């Protein structure tokens, strides 16, 4: 049903129709709760919810978890590419925030504590205390012809740690460290428990469905609004407003009450009885511009 609010022409004016009311009835027959409009509204709302999920889980929670929450894991720097006998090559060496030591994580998934850091045969002078901030990195190899080749292994080094920004590899080529979003996404965990990439995938999926086929999201929308959003909102509202009321309003009320004691003329709510008339004289006529204010 089109609303005249969106119309740009004025049919009644053009037809010179007198204001009798007759013109509107056919549409009013079906004006009440049009089901087509209602479905369209629900789809729009479902789409908004999908996009909101994408923004919240994929961008905000994902980003925060990448930037901040992974701090506890403290990934370190690459130290060596030489594998001891019977072992696969070392992929990544990590600074373990729990034991405060370096660990080698082997490509078969096991980890061993390391005694020292060795980079290209030399002990690396990396002080764990300098590891501040985190940048996900990816190893690239620059060959003799100057082309870059991606080794595929991912690293994380502290921001500004220039000494590991480029590593000379045993075969003579140079490994350069570049930021790797994919690695960060794959390893980061929200609060150390929930894998960030799961959350981000859920957000992206809902966002995509919301944009492409919002009708599919309508049942989820109903569930979310009814069983998750409403109770959460109910609780939050009471919590926050309760705090505002008791931490702001009540002390202010107390202060005002103390200030007013013994001064009966200071009575903004007019609770005290007084002699004479209770009529209050209005201020002199107001300027017409008072219509332009909301107060």
């Amino acid at each position, binding site marked *: 049903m089109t609303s005249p609010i969106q119309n740009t022409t004025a049919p009644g004016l053009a037809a010179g129709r007198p204001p009798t009311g007759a013109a509107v009835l*056919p549409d009013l027959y079906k004006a009440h709760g049009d089901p087509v409009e209602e479905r369209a509204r629900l789809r729009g709302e479902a789409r908004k919810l999908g996009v909101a999920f994408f923004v919240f889980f994929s961008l905000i929670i994902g980003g925060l978890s990448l930037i901040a929450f992974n701090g506890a894991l403290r990934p370190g720097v690459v130290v060596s590419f030489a594998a001891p006998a019977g072992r696969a090559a070392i992929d990544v060496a990590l600074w373990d925030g729990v034991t405060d030591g370096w660990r080698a994580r082997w490509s078969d998934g096991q980890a061993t504590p390391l005694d020292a850091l060795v980079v290209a045969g030399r002990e690396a002078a990396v002080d764990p205390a300098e590891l501040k901030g985190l940048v996900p990195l990816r190893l690239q190899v620059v060959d003799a012809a100057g082309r870059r080749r991606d080794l595929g292994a991912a690293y994380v080094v502290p921001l500004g740690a220039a000494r590991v920004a480029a590593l000379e590899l045993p075969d003579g080529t140079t490994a350069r460290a570049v930021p790797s979003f994919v690695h960060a996404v794959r390893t980061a965990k929200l609060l150390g428990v929930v894998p960030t990439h799961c959350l981000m995938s859920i957000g992206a999926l809902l966002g995509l469905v919301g944009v492409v086929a919002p009708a599919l999201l309508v049942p989820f929308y109903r569930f979310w609004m009814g069983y998750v959003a409403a109770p959460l909102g109910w609780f939050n509202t009471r919590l926050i407003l309760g705090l505002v009321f008791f931490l702001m309003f009540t002390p202010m009320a107390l202060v005002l009450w103390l200030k007013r004691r013994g001064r009966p003329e200071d009575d903004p709510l007019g609770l005290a009885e007084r002699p004479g008339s209770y009529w209050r004289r209005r201020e002199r006529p107001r300027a017409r511009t008072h219509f332009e204010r909301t107060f």
Partner: protein
Amino acid sequence: MTYVLGISAFYHDSAACLVRDGELVAAAQEERFTRKKHDARFPRNAVDYCLREAGITVSHLDHVAFYDKPLLKFERLLQTYLGTAPRGLRSFVMAMPVWLKEKLGTAGLIRKELPGYRKRILFGEHHESHAASAFYPSPFEEAAVLTIDGVGEWATTTFGRGKGHELELLGQIDFPHSIGLLYSAFTYYTGFKVNSGEYKVMGLAPYGQPRFVDAILSKIMDLREDGSFHLRMDYFDYMSGLRMTSSRFDDVFGGPPRTAEAQLTQREMDLAASVQVVTEMAMERQARHVKEVTGADYLCMAGGVALNCVSNGKLLRKGIFKDIFVQPAAGDAGGALGVAMAVWHKYLGKPRMVSPDGRDAMKGSLLGPAPDHDDAKRHLTSIGAPFRELSEEELPGVLAELLEQGNVIGLCQGRMEFGPRALGGRSIIGDPRSRDMQKTMNLKIKYRESFRPFAPACLPEDVADWFEHDRPSPYMLMVAPVLEKHRIAMTEEQQKLFGIEKLNVPRSSVPAITHVDYSARIQTVDERDNPVFYRVIKAFKERTGVPILVNTSYNVRGEPIVCTAEDAYRCFMRTEMDYLLIARCLIKKPEQPKFDDKGDWRKEFELD
């Protein structure tokens, strides 16, 4: 041409009103379209309708105005919480979310609903809107104005003076002291719903004895000679709580509030009678004060309390003013009309023309949509409903004959009424001489309490012949006694009956519209405003000698008054009405196909 759109919304009874060059083009309440009583959402459908009626779109609007000042109201709320904390948490938690989310951004909400409108949104003060709705459409060049309601921003009662297009408020009484809230407190206490049950309290009052008047005036209220007053807040709970009255109130009036739908006892009737008397006293004193200050000959009234037609009638008969005009949409819906008129006359400074024939500018308050005859025919045919098409000439005679035979007829013809009363556009009508009519209509058609009285729709030329009332009362806002000569005196035995038992004793030759105290809520029907209804009454008078019909609103209890032909047909089929007139189509109940109703419709409307 200059178009001003007035809007009332977000509290109760949202509405829209369109004024073109100072003339009322259209006005309607949102509840009629959404079928949700007292719908407070933005009046989207009502705005749509108003624009269509004028044949314009949003882009043609020159000014859009809201009927009160949200920020002032918010300030009042905060002040109240500061005055009552640490009490008031629950009310705070209820009120704040809506304010923070919506009401503080009222201008934005309105803009969102009116895409294409880029000019300023104007805000009138609540009681200025009421005052404007009372004075500007009134038939008086110069008059005093009195507005009384629950509460607006701060004011609950104001008075002022209007002359030409100038209107100035001179004095006011502020929240929490309020006649409207006092009445609401008794509405709550007698077990009715606040904001809609006040009418029932007024209807109940004549069954009781005002034995609590002294208690009200000595304990809970200080009413001064000049009509100003003070409510003692220990007895009320509405400032900080979710109830109207406090436990101290219960102590004064002997017990807790009646629970909704419980048996009505003599105590409730006495309470109703008492608060009614106090309201009348306050209004009379206020009117005298206003007369003294302004010296005006005429009075205009608006605000919810001005819908108290019993008080209005008594005030008129006191003769303090030569005449009184009450805005038919005196409640908050009328604020939309008031603010639109105020923008035209006060903000734009345009002159005001008073009709030389002494008529007001409300057009009989018939400002809503009308069913078109051809559309109605098409609709009825499409749903397979048999009907008889009446010519304009035969219509009054046919209806009068049916009425005389005791049939109850639904009317859905002409433009819909603006304001709470049905005035013949969307009415149920019947023969007032019938002894059972009141009971039949209440219990079988409206499904509501049997004590509630019905109003007489009367020819204006005959009103003085039947009632102690000598002038038009087109909006059913004046109650006057039925003349002695039409009354039936009660026998001694009947005198002894108490309260509602008296209901079954016919009090006059038109018992259906005569209340137990011989009063009647008069409506006079103007031939120019509502020609069809006028002619039906006239034809009824020619047949029976009685120039009166019972007129009640076309709805069942808790339902908004019907709007469209479809609403009318649905309501007709659900109740025990005999005939229905839509435009000029007459529909007879027994001929109708079986009506397929979804679910239990009686649960569709919450009891009011």
